């Protein structure tokens, strides 16, 4: 190889090495550029993660969304270099109620720019504004240059405050936008897609604060509602207790009135005196049943009511109701007529008090709404299961749209309010008829007259339909029976004395259970009558003691009570009583107990 050839070869070699070097340097520069971009990207990612973590942490422990928003706009402004952050919320926290400024700004101190003051006016949020677009689209949106939105007054206000670019994102509860957070900076900036993605994830994280807050508010409301309900229940219980006490207090003298009237009836009276006395007994009995029904209504309301089934003569009941109401109707110039179809004399079994209560409610309503010189008709007819009662009045009737409503408690028509009343009567009737297997409603009869009707089941009479079994003549009662009666009420003690006098019993009267127990320790008796409610020791307790100590010596114990509810009777029998004598005391019932076996014991004693 010549020198020249060697020089050429060397130059070629040098050129190759130079080219390799150039390639190496190009590759290195490229690698560095890539590595720097990756590092920057990682750094940005890291910062976005830190931002996200900070907001998520705050969202976890902050209960008030406003605190979480305030914290978030501060951190996002720091992260992005935005000079203004602001929060919009839905008016009243209701979806679709429109955005209003939450008054939350970053920085919190400055609030005097035209942009700030303009943002509190809702009319400055036109459809094309950034927050409104976020509200509609439910995702983060970037506005690169506000000058492009200069037709929007709010953008003009932003520009005049030195703001050029902005972005906003929603706070999402599911798909619902609960708030919009917006940010502005003084430089035009292209959309940062990675940031928008981060903000979109933040949307539901902040949404959970809203959700939690709503949950807390709901809990508080529920708590308040529960407190109100408890108060209402307490008031209702107080009302029921008041009713129970009052009606008991009324019933005690009423029992005395009835007992004395019954005794009076056994005296020799003139026909007109007897009629007056019968009127006292009739009206008093009705009053007593009404009292019991009132007590029972509180049980209906408490869901504890049971029908009080007894045997009675339906036709007689209807006639006595009409005879009592006829004079009152006549006073108002109204004729009250009774039409009975298919209901003959004889006894049926149902709850007489409840049926009477329904009839009286409907009749008194009918009289209220009937003009003078018109008539009210009470129609009763037998049905397959029992009876159907109709009260036809001369009033205008109930408009069709009100026909369901008036049967609910405290619901009245305009006319009903004018006529007075609490609006309870019909709802009591609803409770009664349902309990008796029937129904109730209002419509018009075949002549277009206003009509209220109800039905109820009637059961076959347990005593075989006859009334004779009750009659036990005083002569059948053996003379000289020793009777111990415990009764705290003086009037009732007098009633017992009067009623038992014809039977010539040896009556020992005591005033409470303790005295009764004492009397039994010292003497033997053939029958023990025990009032339930007495001071010192009540009847039930006394019966328990008598049974426990075997003090009765074979004498039957009968409870004297007006509380003839089924569960009460069961309680007395469980305590050891042999039966119940309901007040007002029916003489025949009393004599039946006094009469020796084989006389049938009182039905209620079974």
């Amino acid at each position: 190889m010549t020198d020249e050839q060697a020089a050429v070869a060397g130059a070629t070699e040098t050129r190759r090495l130079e080219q390799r070097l150039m390639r190496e340097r190009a590759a290195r520069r490229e690698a560095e550029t890539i590595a720097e971009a990756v590092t920057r990207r990682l750094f940005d990612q890291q910062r976005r993660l830190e931002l996200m973590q900070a907001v998520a942490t705050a969202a976890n422990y902050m209960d008030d969304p406003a605190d979480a928003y305030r914290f978030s706009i501060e951190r996002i402004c720091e992260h992005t270099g935005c000079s203004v952050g602001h929060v919009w919320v839905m008016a009243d926290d209701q979806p679709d109620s429109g955005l209003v400024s939450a008054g939350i700004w970053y920085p919190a101190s400055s609030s005097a720019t035209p942009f700030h003051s303009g943002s509190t006016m809702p009319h400055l949020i036109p459809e094309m504004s950034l927050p409104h677009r976020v509200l509609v689209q439910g995702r983060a949106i970037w506005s690169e240059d506000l000058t492009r939105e200069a037709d929007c007054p709010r953008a003009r206000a932003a520009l005049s405050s030195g703001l050029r670019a902005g972005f906003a994102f929603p706070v999402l509860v599911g798909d619902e936008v609960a708030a919009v957070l917006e940010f502005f900076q003084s430089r035009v900036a292209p959309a940062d897609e990675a940031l928008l993605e981060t903000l979109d994830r933040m949307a539901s994280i902040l949404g959970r604060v809203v959700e939690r807050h709503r949950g807390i508010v709901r809990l508080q409301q529920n708590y308040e509602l529960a407190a109100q309900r408890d108060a209402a229940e307490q008031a209702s219980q107080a009302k029921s207790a008041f009713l129970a006490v009052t009606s008991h207090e009324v019933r005690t003298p009423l029992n005395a009135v009835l007992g004395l009237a019954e005794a009076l009836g056994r005296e020799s009276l003139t026909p007109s005196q007897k009629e007056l006395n019968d009127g006292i007994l009739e009206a008093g009995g009705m009053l007593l049943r009404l009292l019991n029904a009132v007590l029972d209504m509180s049980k209906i309301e408490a869901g504890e009511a049971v029908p009080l089934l007894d045997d009675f003569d339906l036709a007689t009941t209807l006639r006595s109701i009409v005879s009592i109401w006829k004079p009152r109707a006549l006073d108002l110039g109204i004729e009250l007529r009774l039409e009975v179809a298919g209901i003959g004399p004889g006894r049926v079994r149902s709850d007489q008090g409840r049926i009477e209560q329904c009839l009286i409610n409907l009749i008194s309503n009918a009289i209220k709404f009937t003009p003078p010189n018109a008539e009210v008709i009470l129609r009763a007819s037998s049905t397959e299961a029992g009876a159907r009662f109709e009260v036809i009045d001369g009033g205008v009737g109930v408009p069709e749209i009100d026909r369901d409503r008036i049967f609910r408690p405290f619901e009245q028509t305009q006319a009903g309010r004018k006529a007075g009343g609490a609006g309870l009567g019909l709802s009591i009737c609803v409770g009664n008829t349902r309990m008796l297997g029937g129904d109730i409603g209002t419509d018009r009869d075949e002549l277009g007259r206003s009509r209220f009707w109800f039905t109820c089941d009637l059961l076959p009479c347990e005593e075989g339909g006859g009334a004779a079994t009750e009659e036990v003549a005083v002569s059948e009662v053996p003379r000289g029976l020793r009777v111990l009666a415990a009764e705290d009420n003086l009037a009732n003690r007098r009633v017992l004395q009067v009623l038992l006098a014809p039977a010539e019993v040896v009556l020992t009267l005591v005033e409470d259970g303790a005295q009764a127990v004492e009397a039994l320790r010292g003497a033997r008796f053939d029958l023990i009558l025990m009032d339930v409610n007495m001071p010192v020791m009540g009847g039930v307790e006394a019966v328990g003691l008598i049974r426990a100590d075997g003090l009765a010596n074979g004498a039957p114990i009968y409870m004297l009570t007006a509380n003839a509810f089924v569960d009460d009777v069961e309680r007395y029998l469980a305590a050891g009583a042999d039966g119940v004598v309901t007040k007002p005391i029916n003489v025949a019932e009393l004599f039946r107990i006094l009469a020796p076996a084989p006389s049938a014991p009182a039905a209620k004693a079974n």
Partner: protein
Amino acid sequence: MKGVVFNLLEEAVDRAFGPDTWDGLIDASGVSGAYTSLGNYPDEEMEALVAAASEALALDRNQVLRWFGQNAIPVLAELYPGFFTGAVDARNFVEGINHIIHAEVRKLYPGAACPHFRLHADSSGDLVMDYLSTRNMCALAQGFVEGAGAWYRQSVDFRHVQCTQDGHSHCTFAMNWSAPEARTAAA
């Protein structure tokens, strides 16, 4: 295509034929020749380099790619020894291609378009591999498999059951390996 593949090709060519040959391939193919493992380069540059090699060595494209695969494995083993030490033999290495090697590649080079291999053992115990890639570089895959066999000192029976180049929707390889010989020293 990832820059690391170009780096592997350059290194394999350097080792087998010297740097001048690589220079020659770059001149002949008209590519820039500056490749960093972090970069991403057009597939066409690889095809141009393979075409130039094919010209220079009087081999067809598949033969060049297969040679490249075989000779890239020792270089790869030096750059990423972890890929190899984790697998007990060549078959184990090939079986880990999707979830170990390509998973690592994606960590280093986010967005890398790695081919996907569907793998299953057939009734005779052969490992059957479906190769799905838009690049049509099944010969390179074969070369890699053979190179890995050599690295583990195992002979491999590689059958190209079907090929996209014959109009099939994808390539299918069937492979089995001899028992590994005791390896005395790292390659």
